[in-house]
């Protein structure tokens, strides 16, 4: 079994028209046993940047705390929030620093940049950035997610349509993965508001 399959996870982010959506499953397991059904994988860095971390849950939480710390230092020094591109470079540098003993998680970063232009990117566990214009996926269900998103995605969707698309892609992919699922957690962010929704999925 791979280290990434110890806890099980699924994270996906999609770009819409002046908005983005980021979604994850809610299961926390220890190999095949489920121990929690409300695990928080997506965290807010600031109002316009979210990071979803898949992989080993302990590294998810540690890495999140480290990143929030670095972002707070940045806010104190620069008196403003970090742009999503800058934040992605920061995460990449922190992960590459541990090149030979890496954090065992794969981040998905989504944010609204200048002029409300949405930005998404994902990285492997040592910080190789992969920018995309449409969607990014990560986690044990990533292969199904690639397929579902490739089929369901279309460019320039509005917030409600984007929510529906990302939810359907997430739920249909985690239904085919034993290690992730038990509901979904979706954040849709537009320049005016953040909508956080909990989805009902198959509880198996």
């Amino acid at each position, binding site marked *: 079994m791979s*280290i990434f399959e110890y806890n099980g996870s699924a994270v996906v982010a999609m770009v819409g028209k002046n908005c983005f959506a980021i979604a994850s499953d809610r299961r926390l397991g220890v190999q095949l046993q489920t121990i929690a059904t409300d695990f928080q994988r997506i965290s807010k860095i600031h109002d316009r940047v979210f990071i979803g971390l898949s992989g080993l849950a302990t590294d998810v939480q540690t890495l999140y705390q480290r990143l929030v710390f670095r972002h707070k230092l940045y806010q104190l020094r620069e008196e403003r929030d970090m742009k999503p591109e800058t934040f992605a470079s920061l995460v990449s540098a922190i992960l590459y620093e541990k090149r030979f003993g*890496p954090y065992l998680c794969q981040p998905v970063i989504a944010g609204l940049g200048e002029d409300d232009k949405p930005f998404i990117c994902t990285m*492997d566990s040592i910080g190789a950035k992969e920018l995309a214009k449409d969607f990014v996926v990560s986690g044990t269900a990533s292969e199904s997610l690639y397929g579902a998103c490739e089929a369901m995605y279309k460019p320039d969707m509005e917030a409600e349509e984007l929510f529906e698309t990302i939810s359907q892609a997430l739920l249909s992919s985690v239904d085919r993965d034993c290690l992730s699922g038990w509901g979904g957690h979706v954040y849709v962010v537009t320049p005016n508001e*953040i909508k956080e*929704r909990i989805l009902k999925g198959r509880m198996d």
Partner: protein
Amino acid sequence: MDLLKVNWGRRKHSLFYYLFLASKQLFPLDLYLFSPNPFRFDQPSSSSRLFDFGRMSQAGVDVPAKGGFSFDLCKRNDMLIQKGLKAPSFLKTGTTIVGLIFKDGVILGADTRATEGPIVADKNCEKIHYMAPNIYCCGAGTAADTEAVTGIFLSNIDMVSSQLRLHRYQTGRDSRVITALTLLKKHLFSYQGHVSAALVLGGVDITGPHLHTIYPHGSTDTLPFATMGSGSLAAMSVFEAKYKEGLTRDEGIKLVAEAICSGIFNDLGSGSNVDICVITKGHKEYLRNYMEPNPRTYVSSKGYSFTKKTEVLRTKITPLMERVEITEVGEAMEE
């Protein structure tokens, strides 16, 4: 001494404080001795890291590190692997990268597929990295390594592109390709091949056009045409058949595109589009997605319609504050 000149925030600390901090970010000697983890063979000449023999790295306070690699998760990861969990696989750029020298300069080419095991992770990634205004480098191997070794995002002065820029400021001259080559090979050799980046470096400087290949262990070749990556054999066959000296720009671009296409179609690790970069004396042209021989032809115009909507259990809406533009009105204060 570098230590004395560094500011921490806005206050200058004493030398003793730096010695204390530096000793916390030390090289974990016991990890090196008892586990097969790589470390640098050569000492950086202006070493700001002091060794405290026998003491493990204590990452108690996560102050931003002074650069370089940190090995503090190695022991835990080894323990997990011994318990039977497999190590993670990294994003590789399976790749076909090529370069050739033509009449007026250098042409570099690359495909755009990034793979994670057998899955295509990125259908359109960029493999031609900027090093200097007149030098570009294509990278194959582990994606994070090729990005880091050629990039500038790390604060560590060891990263080649930023070192080249500092050198340009210091000498007041354009960078030479041989300088970039030496910096890259020194870095890769010192990590004994563990930084898995195979590069094709090309550029035009005051001494003329140059093309080099650099292997992950640090050996280099200087060639009139070169290919690297998993598709290198497919591309090299095209070059060996059709290359001649003194090609014009259009002939050169056509040949490079043909070589990359042969890699795209025959090698499973390469795919998607062709990127080309043409560097001549004083001028460069980066043709991103010069050719797209694999467009997606099955897009349905009416999109995907969902018959059953997702069930939502809870919704929470957080309105974001309006962003206010502050414009300075009135006159500035005068003394």
